[in-house]
């Protein structure tokens, strides 16, 4: 470990910034793999606490937040040194969270308690607990930071939460076990994935109406294996990528028409996705094959796969 840290320190010293570094939580091996986003080489592996899952980075790239589910808190690491700086209270069993676009506060889904916890990232204090549906999981935030979306897996709703008042302003019923909520960069559309329902709901955030449901059909893959989880949309709003879980594929969707245009074969049980800052690449965590697939976004092609720790779960890329 010391050796790894030393190596990491050297590399950090040699590079001007940590831009384009990729951080992957490994749920089973309790660590974080750091990849170089240029060479795709593993820079190091660092202890994370027990059962690391959701991961996010502050807009200025100085704080790395990790939901450490079995420790019932959020650990905050220095992305340069991967030293733990402090922890944040999260409520029990935190799984996913979303950071306000300004970097503060952090909205955390607590599956065990049917609440969303709001935590100030500067003062490390809990600001609010918002009651939501059964098993809150997916968290998304509107680009203007005014609305946070939480999806509840057993209630099957996307809850719209006002980030000023912490009140729920609307609830949209979607298909079974909604896992992830993702706005387009212009805020005009909200995508919500449903793992058991096998669909992605396209929601108009203004009217809070479902305008379309995207479904998937892959020759040779059992329909019940198609389980949409992570989703990311390019900032120009042209392409939506959806991780399909045990179907071992990422769906590429034309985000103008919301029609599926391709399926890319990745590793096993693909869970979460993250773009590189220039959106040239998309990283996927493949939980059952212990690797990360790297997709060339323009070409719709998997260009590399990189072995990481055991049961990779979440991924985030440092901003430029």
């Amino acid at each position, binding site marked *: 470990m010391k050796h790894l840290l030393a190596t990491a320190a050297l590399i950090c010293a040699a590079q001007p910034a940590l831009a384009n570094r990729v951080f992957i939580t490994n749920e089973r091996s309790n660590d974080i793999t750091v990849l170089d986003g240029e060479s795709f080489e593993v820079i190091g592996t660092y202890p994370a606490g027990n059962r690391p899952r959701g991961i996010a980075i502050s807009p200025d790239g100085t704080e790395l937040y990790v939901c450490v589910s079995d420790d019932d808190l959020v650990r905050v690491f220095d992305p340069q040194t991967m030293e733990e700086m402090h922890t944040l209270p999260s409520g029990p069993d935190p799984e996913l969270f979303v950071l306000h676009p300004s970097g503060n506060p952090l909205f955390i889904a607590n599956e065990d308690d049917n609440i969303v916890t709001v935590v100030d990232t500067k003062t490390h204090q809990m600001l609010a607990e918002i009651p939501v549906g059964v*098993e809150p999981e997916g968290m998304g935030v509107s680009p203007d930071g005014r609305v946070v979306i939480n999806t509840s897996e057993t209630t099957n709703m996307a809850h719209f939460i006002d980030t000023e008042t912490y009140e729920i302003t609307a609830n949209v019923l979607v298909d079974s076990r909604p896992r992830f909520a993702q706005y387009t960069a212009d805020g005009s559309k909200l995508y919500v994935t449903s793992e058991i329902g096998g669909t992605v709901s396209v929601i108009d955030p203004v009217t809070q109406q479902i305008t379309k449901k995207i479904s998937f059909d892959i020759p040779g893959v059992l329909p019940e294996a198609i389980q949409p989880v992570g989703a990311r949309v390019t900032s120009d709003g042209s392409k939506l990528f959806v991780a399909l879980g045990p179907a071992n594929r990422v769906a590429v969707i034309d985000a103008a028409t919301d029609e599926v245009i391709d399926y890319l074969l990745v590793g096993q049980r693909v869970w979460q996705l993250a773009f590189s800052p220039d959106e040239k690449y998309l990283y996927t965590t493949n939980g059952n094959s212990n690797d990360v697939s790297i997709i060339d976004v323009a070409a719709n092609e998997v260009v590399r796969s990189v072995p990481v720790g055991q049961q990779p779960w979440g991924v985030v890329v440092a901003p430029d």
Partner: protein
Amino acid sequence: MFKGITGILAGACALAQPVHAQAPEPVVIRAAVLRVDDPGLPPISRLELPPEDLGFAGADLATDDNDTTGRFMGQDFQTVTVAATPDTAADSMRDLLDQDIRFIVVMADDDVTLALADQVGDRAMLINAMARGDNLRGVDCRMNTIHVAPSRAMLADGLTQFLMWKNWPRWMLIHGSHPQDQAMAEAYRRSAAKFGAEIVEEREFEDTGGARRTDSGHVQVQSQMPVFTQRAEDHDIVITADEADVFAVYLPYLTWDPRPVAGSAGLVPRSWHPAMEAWGATQFQNRFEALANRRMREADYQAWLSLRIIGEAATRTNSGDPDTLRDFILSPEFDVAGFKGQALTVRDWDHQVRQPILLTTGDLTTSVSPQEQYLHQTSQLDTLGVDRAETECRFEDPS
């Protein structure tokens, strides 16, 4: 493709309206759980002693879950729980019907479940959360009943698929002498024929009565079990069919030949296990344990799922009308999530809820069937149990 989606959406849009929190008067949706306890002998292992709130605790959790969603829907779920004996079950059922409760979860054995279904007729929908009888899904099927409990055929097929994957096709089958043991043995015979296993030897362990507990009873058992299993045809595994709980749990480590045990002991096919953690089940187990101060048993899971089916139908239809809910539950549009990694649906030919079967040891879930190599043209879950083409169920035309 687009047309298909628009069509479905047109239907769904009515349901997809944003649901605002301030509903005026909540719609009340009532259900009951009727548990019929057979005052029989205590189980061989005291770990299996039934808690007083068996099943009811699962029902309480489902009502809580339904109400959490109901807050957003303007729906209020109310559940009555009643414990009865086989002698008082009909009276208890009449009371529930007199209260005009239209959804009744029944936790009883095969015969009582069937008698209650016939008593109810078209006055309520029954949800069978305990009885495993294949006859209840076959020759004795009833239009007014759906089956959340897996059938014996499903449990046997779940185990057989795993044993075929394991390449243990030669079985010594030991069954008890009670009717339910015979029925389970028949399910294993059918399953062996379906998947190509061979029952090389079959023995009956007769229940000669007597107490379950005696001082230092293990001394005799230790010599009885090896003797009972000696000189069998060469076999890979011992399959036990002992629903009456007379002998199976004694067998592991006491068989004459060193062979694993499965069925009623050893590797056991079940609908649920308190160590299940996949597919978000950890949170579900935690919620239950916080509520009930004990671990979740199969009966609790099955009661929970029964009431969640009603709650899911109420959410999706945005209705509390019992006829609307029943029609939706029986329609091809219905599905519900049950922490088993895929949507659970209702077979239209016998009203059995399709579901994966867990294969469990004392401490863990060893595997989950269907095993991936068993494919099916409709749903892989239909490789478990009685498929459409084989069903003996003929629902009577209600007209």
